[in-house]
């Protein structure tokens, strides 16, 4: 397919409309699992991912609880299986617009492909353009810990592993164009719209992380050594930016790290009264990994309740405790920064019933997860109902957990609620099963 064609979008232009059985929105672990299950049953799938690579959040994680195997080892084979499956067509850096239910014959929609300004077919991902590009910006895939160039391959295990020009920051100097040995840079690319006709939809739009900037008293954004758990996660992965765990303020190796659980979860004041289900465990996991990376460091986890509920989780929590991670039942009032960049954590020690202050040289906010809100324009008229927290509502949770209020539209993974990886995979299994049943009844 010529990916650079420009088409005038017309909904009744049958020749240009691509036909599929299932549209999977989102290429994270849930979307991949659902797509693979259906593709292996012979259904034709279109997967649309808004980011530059499939793999979702999982591909950015280090080791995962409670087994501590490396996330990349588990997810990259799924990513590449999805990418090369003959029944799956993937559009990355693309968005779904205007899903419209037709009378009795599925849905029409448009895939809006954003220009990469790089020819996907010819780019080899050699990164010579990156070397030549003079523009530095913060790297969103390293959660702003380090910089990248305006033309960049998103990350080393990205799929597709090709370059993109970030036009918001590009100065149009043309250095990349001159350097590219494959002649793949194309500043004339424009947005492209592809009409699609599908029989059913799986929403696997996942989650986004809570932005702790809104909790001013924690000082995130003002105090350099207050980071989010995802920023710490990135420091623990093999493709980590500093090849070591360092505090961002001055590059010192931290030796006294605090975790603040329930940051942005179970907190009505920030509009998210529910529990995020994963933060207790990922914090316990990071604490264990940190004890390996920084054997001399003290790790303290401030918690309200430790929710180690899944298979092997309680055992994993007890393992963390026995390794020497300190768990303090305490509510954080305020964090202040000292001149040397260390942090004073003021908290209520619930067991002792007193307010205390503790000094740490780095504070990790265990941020909760929020639904990645489905954009208004993804659906044209009818749209699936959301629950009070803006997750996709499950209308028959106890018998058909993937069913939504809209016939033919199903939900998988964290789009329906906070969920860890094993739960997301089972949820995607349910979504693919229910979708297959729906498709069989259609034919």
């Amino acid at each position: 397919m010529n990916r650079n064609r420009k088409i005038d979008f017309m909904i009744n232009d049958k020749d240009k409309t691509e036909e599929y059985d299932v549209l999977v929105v989102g290429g994270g672990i849930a979307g991949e699992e659902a797509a693979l299950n259906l593709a292996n049953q012979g259904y034709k799938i279109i997967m649309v991912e808004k980011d530059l690579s499939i793999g979702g959040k999982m591909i950015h994680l280090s080791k995962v609880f409670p087994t501590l195997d490396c996330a990349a080892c588990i997810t990259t084979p799924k990513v590449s299986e999805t990418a090369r499956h003959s029944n799956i067509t993937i559009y990355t850096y693309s968005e779904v617009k205007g899903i419209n239910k037709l009378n009795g014959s599925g849905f029409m929609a448009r895939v809006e492909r954003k220009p990469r300004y790089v020819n996907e077919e010819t780019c080899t991902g050699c990164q010579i353009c990156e070397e030549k590009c003079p523009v530095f910006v913060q790297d969103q895939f390293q959660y702003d810990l380090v910089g990248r160039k305006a033309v960049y391959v998103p990350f080393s295990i990205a799929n597709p592993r090709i370059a993109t020009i970030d036009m918001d920051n590009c100065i149009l100097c043309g250095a990349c164009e001159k350097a590219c040995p494959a002649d793949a840079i194309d500043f004339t690319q424009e947005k492209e719209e592809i009409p699609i006709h599908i029989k059913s939809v799986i929403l696997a739009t996942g989650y986004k992380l809570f932005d702790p900037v809104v909790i001013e008293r924690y000082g995130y954004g003002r105090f350099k050594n207050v980071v989010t758990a995802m920023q710490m996660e990135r420091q623990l992965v093999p493709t980590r930016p500093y090849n070591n765990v360092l505090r961002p303020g001055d590059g010192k190796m931290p030796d006294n790290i605090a975790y603040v659980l329930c940051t942005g979860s179970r907190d009505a004041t920030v509009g998210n009264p529910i529990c995020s289900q994963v933060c207790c465990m990922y914090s316990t996991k990071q604490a264990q990994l940190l004890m390996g990376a920084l054997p001399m460091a003290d790790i303290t986890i401030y918690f309200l309740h430790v929710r180690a509920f899944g298979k092997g989780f309680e055992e994993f929590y007890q393992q963390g405790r026995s390794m020497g991670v300190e768990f303090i039942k305490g509510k954080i009032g305020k964090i202040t920064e000292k001149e040397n960049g260390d942090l004073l954590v003021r908290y209520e020690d619930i067991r002792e019933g007193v307010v205390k202050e503790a000094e740490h040289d780095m504070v990790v906010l265990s941020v909760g997860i929020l639904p990645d809100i489905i954009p208004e324009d993804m659906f044209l008229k009818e749209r699936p109902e959301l629950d009070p927290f803006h997750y996709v509502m499950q209308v028959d949770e106890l018998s058909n957990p993937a069913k939504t209020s809209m016939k033919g539209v199903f939900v998988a993974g964290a789009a329906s609620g906070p969920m860890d990886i094993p739960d997301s995979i089972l949820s995607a299994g349910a979504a693919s099963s229910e979708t297959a049943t729906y498709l069989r009844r259609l034919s």
Partner: protein
Amino acid sequence: MKNNIGVYICQCGSNISDYVDVEKVRDEVSKIEGVAIAKTTMFACADSTQKEIIEDVRNKKLDAMVVASCSPKLHLFTFRNVAIRAGLNPYHYVQVNIREQDSWAHSDHPAEATLKAIGLVSAGIARVKHSKALKSIDIPSRNAVAILGAGVSGMRAAIEMADMGTEVHLIEREHFVGGRTSQWSQLFTTRQSGEEVVSGLYNKIINNENISLYTGAELLSMKGSVGDFKAKIRIIPRYIKADCILKDNQELLNATLKAINACPVEISDDFNFNITKRKAIYKNYHSEFPECPAIDYEHCTKCGECAKYLDAVDFEQKEQEVEINVGAFVVATGFDPYEPEKGEYAYAEVENVITLPQFKRLIEMNEKELTYRNKAVKNIAYIYCVGSRQTEGKNNYCSRYCCTSAIHAAIHARNKYRDINNFHINRGIRTYGKQELLYEESSRNGDIYLQFDEENIPVVEKQGEKLIIKVKDILTQEKELEVEADLLVLVTGMVPRKHSKVSDILKIPLGRDHFFNEIHPKLKPVETVIDGVFICGACQAPFNITETIKSSLSAASKANALISKGKIELEPTIAEINPEQCSWCGACTEVCLYDAIRKIGHNGKEIAEVDESKCKGCGMCLPVCDQNAINLIGYTDKEIESFIDALIS
């Protein structure tokens, strides 16, 4: 012999390269004769590396591949697929494990770990040199499944698989389906009743011609292997004719009630977790399906009293054994509630101490006012984590559903009856996700939460008529508080099913928590190491109903993918008999665990023959053969000897 070999040494991020000097390994093995190319890579399994390997194979005309990375359990098939895509026979690929068997095991000795890696990779290269091109064995598969357990998990999987065109044998030990869900009234978080959920599923099952439902049925034995299992099922008689359906038949219903009334046998009613009695003939609850009474085979004295009222009673029914032939099993045998020991929080010693499941039945049975043993109940105390998160005792795990379930029951009780006070004596409430809202609702209702540590467990005392629970409450600086309660509910967790022969018969491995174990929680969450045997629901780990259904739908879709194509591809790495050398002694059949070797005639003599569909390639038969007439394909003497030579040289 292969002499143009590509070798790839994976860093696995840093999992391997932190301890093994991968550059040194590469430099050493690239000197080996026959190695055309040796490289290191950050993630061998990443798509970009896979592409690179394929290009190398094509451009350099490689004839074999070795990847030194993690366990073949994880990625053997990933790289075999790379070989196929590159145009190589997948059996010209050998995976060397330098992670689980090297870097992780010897993280304290990096220099030695590097030496070991060199040895292992050299051995892998030596082995791949003698590799032979092989083709997988296709065996026919029956598109039929046996689902063990007709709780919500098994029923949901049955419906799904039957819809996909699979012949389903749904096997339930009890006379009624629905499992635990039929015993619950209101369910969180949808507040549907168990009856609604179970009846919805049951109606779909009886109207589906692809499903055969067996009640009072138990798996006796299993033979064969994936694609072609033969299972024996024992069915105990119901002693009631199958056409006795009470639904919409008032006359029959009245007759049944009279028959039940007339029965002189009284036994504990396990539907109510033994807080009430039932008769030997029974059908006491709306949520019991099929809507046909049953007679308890074990306890009935065959006195004939019930038969005076109910014509459908039929004592002529006999125990039966049926054999079914299926391609796969889905095991959905569920859980048992933890049964506290006598004296555990005064259980079975003080009468108003009950378990959470009993409490839930109590709420269901008491309409206007909550009473237990004829005494009004106003103050209810709940002690959490009974039988879960044990520090002494074998249940170290958290049972996942109980916090939410107990809070939900407490809310239900408060809404249903007047003046109820709830005291939750817990070890940290775990209402994860949206279930948090129930915790919040209960707190708003004025429920009291006290928290204890595993070091200071509450003490239950009986003072006259009163029940006093003493708690060292960590929320009030460990003050010792006393809760006076009319009823103490022990919030009991889930334990694996007692007396489950299923794991013995199907050989499903158990995890540390004694629940059935999946292969991998993320990669193969419903598969077991026994090919063709899937697990789902609470037999695998504590789950709530939604989570159970998700896993049962996942299992249905994986089982369907395996058996519905009519054939299953099996590994060609099986035993092979050399007919010239074999002179039939029978030693091999005696040690074969899979019944895969039989005697045949060959050129006027008797020799052994291997059944391709049954042989697992375990190699048990090789060492017992006096004549050395058996070879294991893919692990021939030549391959293994050269492997060992390289390892020790």
